[in-house]
């Protein structure tokens, strides 16, 4: 299994293509949000409250300029344009997903490698991780928001912390099996220093399952961020996130269900796309898990 062979298998895999394409579109939308007919997502306009999707109305900018604007996804009870809020909200969701995955993978890899290869560290480190795993994510988030204040960093940290023990366990178990491989023993007898064995021999062989795990963390992080925001312990309500939009739509759900359905649909499609991508990657990168081969 070399890098090029695996890569071509990944590219030929349909789930990877579908999930990847949907995500690529979402990333494009998030990046290009200002140029996709949006207005400032935080803009209030008392005159265009609670509009249904597709309605044309007016919105007043901070400079006092009055714009004619089509509310594609309707507006909320403050008269904010939901289309703009959902598009800008995708930035937060994607950023939280990717950052949480990277942070938990980063810490998890270092901790897992250490626990798996340096046996004297194993007991202490893994008991610490067990302790960490016992704390619910929501509780950490509430505590962190209370201590600092709701921000992207707080949310990412709150989501990443409970994931770290899971990644650590995965990496540790991979390291425990790889360290018994003859090529690692060969490296020992070639006088290769321990740090180099860990990072040059063991780590590269754990990458494939970690990439897969990373996509799952990303998907769950996007969901958890939405939950936290919905509960009001995530990002402050003025920042548009899918969770915040849904939270504001909740009291009026019977009258204006689009306030919840539209961000909800974006959330569902995003998480689905990430998970499909992850499944495809798992099938192609981890032949043991694949149905065929």
């Amino acid at each position, binding site marked *: 299994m070399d890098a090029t062979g695996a890569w071509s298998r990944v590219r030929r895999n349909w789930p990877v293509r579908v999930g990847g394409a949907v995500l690529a579109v979402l990333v494009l939308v998030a990046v290009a949000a200002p140029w996709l007919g949006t207005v400032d997502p935080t803009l209030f306009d008392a005159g265009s409250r609670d509009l249904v999707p597709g309605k044309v109305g007016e919105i007043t900018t901070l400079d006092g300029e009055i714009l004619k604007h089509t509310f594609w996804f309707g507006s909320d009870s403050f008269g904010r344009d939901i289309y703009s809020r959902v598009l800008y909200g995708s930035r937060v969701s994607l950023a939280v997903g990717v950052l949480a995955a990277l942070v938990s993978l980063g810490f998890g890899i270092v901790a897992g490698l250490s626990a798996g290869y340096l046996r004297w560290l194993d007991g202490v480190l893994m008991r610490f991780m067990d302790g960490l795993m016992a704390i619910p994510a929501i509780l950490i988030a509430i505590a962190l928001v209370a201590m600092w204040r709701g921000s992207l960093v707080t949310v990412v940290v709150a989501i990443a912390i409970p994931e770290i023990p899971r990644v650590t366990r995965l990496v540790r178990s991979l390291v425990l099996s790889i360290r018994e491989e003859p090529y690692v*023993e060969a*490296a020992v*007898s070639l006088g*290769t220093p321990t740090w180099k064995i860990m990072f040059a021999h063991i780590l*590269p062989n754990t990458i494939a399952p970690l990439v897969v795990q990373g996509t799952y963390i990303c998907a769950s992080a996007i969901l958890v961020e939405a939950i936290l925001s919905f509960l009001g312990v995530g990002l402050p309500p003025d920042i548009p996130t899918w969770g915040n939009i849904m939270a504001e739509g909740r009291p009026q759900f019977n009258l204006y269900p689009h306030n919840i359905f539209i961000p909800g649909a974006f959330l569902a499609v995003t998480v689905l796309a990430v998970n499909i991508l992850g499944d495809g990657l798992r099938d192609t990168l981890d032949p043991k898990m694949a149905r065929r081969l």
Partner: protein
Amino acid sequence: MSVLEVRGLTIDLPSGGDRRHAAADVGFTVDRGEIVCLVGESGSGKSVIAQSVMGLLPRGLPVTAGEIRLEGEDLLRASPRRLRELRATRMSMVFQEPMTALNPVMRCGEQLDEVLREHTALAPAARRRRILDIVREVRLPDPERMVAAYPHQLSGGQRQRIMIAMALVLEPALLIADEPTTALDVTTQAQILRLIQDLQARHGTGVLFITHDFGVVAEIAHRVAVLCLGELVELGPRDDVLRRPQHQYTRMLIGAVPTLKPHARPADAGAPVVLATRGLSKTYRDRGWLSRHREVHAAADVTLEVRKGQTLGIVGESGSGKSTVARCIVRLIDPSAGEIRLGREDIASMPQSRLRALRRRVQIVFQDPYRSLNPRRSVLEAIIEGPRNYGVPRARAIETARRLMGLVRMDPGSLARYPHQFSGGQRQRICIARALAMEPELLVADEAVSALDVSVQAQVLALLEEIRERLQLAMLFITHDLRVAAQVCDHVAVMSQGRVVEYGPAAQVFGSPRHEYTRALFDAAPGRDFAFGAA
């Protein structure tokens, strides 16, 4: 009428492979009471043929031509239901790995009972009697206990006996044995071979015996079919094929089987000692808080020496402690007691920091060529890693790597390639080059040729010999294969249960073994009456 008749059998391989057919126009017969050996190297198609008879071919391998007749009945046209009826009743199979072929969560008796329940209308009491009978017949001690045991409670040989009992309990006309002794130790193998022969003679069963080992062929076959890349190249009575092989491929295969007679090479008794162990021991302790302490002596009081330019072989069955000794000497594991003298220094309990300077003097080649090279690093990186660790400039290390590739008969141009692009034999050559890059004084070969096909094995052995001669290396050769040991060793140590039971010059140990275990080992060596390798 033959029990099994295979005619013009052609099985396709999925497109994009290195050849079109897994089996091409293969034809042979197995008669009542006859053992036919299907011999070939890995990839020759022998297992595929066995699977096609049992109707167990994977979907990707379709039979495109030919016919398979079991007692006259065409198996390729039989319905899945009919095939299911025939399995176990008229034909049955014994597999290589008895641990995975038995269900680990079912008692052996239940598994036997399942066969009877499925295919007979016998009452429970009658089934029970039949089960105990067959367990007695495969010569398992204490049948009542065996029947109540789970597979993990039995030894490998006992499990294989249970498998044979399961295969024969309904008296099938045909028994297919797919490398049934390959995973077993040589003494167990000898017993299982004798058992198969006895049962087969008593019941008149036709046996299709698949093996890669010509020793086993010599021991058990009536007739031999030799397969090469899916084609049947030779078919005939055992003595004809083994003594007067007609086809060039058969001649090459038989010529590659090492002889059991030790080579006559004068060993210089005055050559300097490169490595000596004294009282080397490795004890594993189970340290429980509450449970009783348990000790396993993996190696006990091992005293050996290897001299410059000479080869010491450590021979033994699995669990004898031979690999433990090798790994202690390379210090992949820490010995519990004793000395390991490398030149003047004792490395047995040397701390890692001081050991590092001495590591390059002892290098090791492992058994499994597929796991000995990091799949994510190129061959060049693998070979220069060692020298680079000791500060050799990259340019010089690369130059050495190119030279070593030449030495192990590989194209230096393929240094940029990755391990998966090479065959097992080529990978083992790369591993040897990697070890040699350190310019060691002692090369430890831990079953280094055991995973290789016999023709490749002969080449790698010849290479190791040449290197030892040319570089005047001391070599420690760990093997379970007496033939290989006879070919390369100047001195031989026979190990059993962690202890060296016999140690001396190869000619003496092989010629007049003193210890009873050594004698048992030699007696068990399959095909010892045939002078292989002489051809």
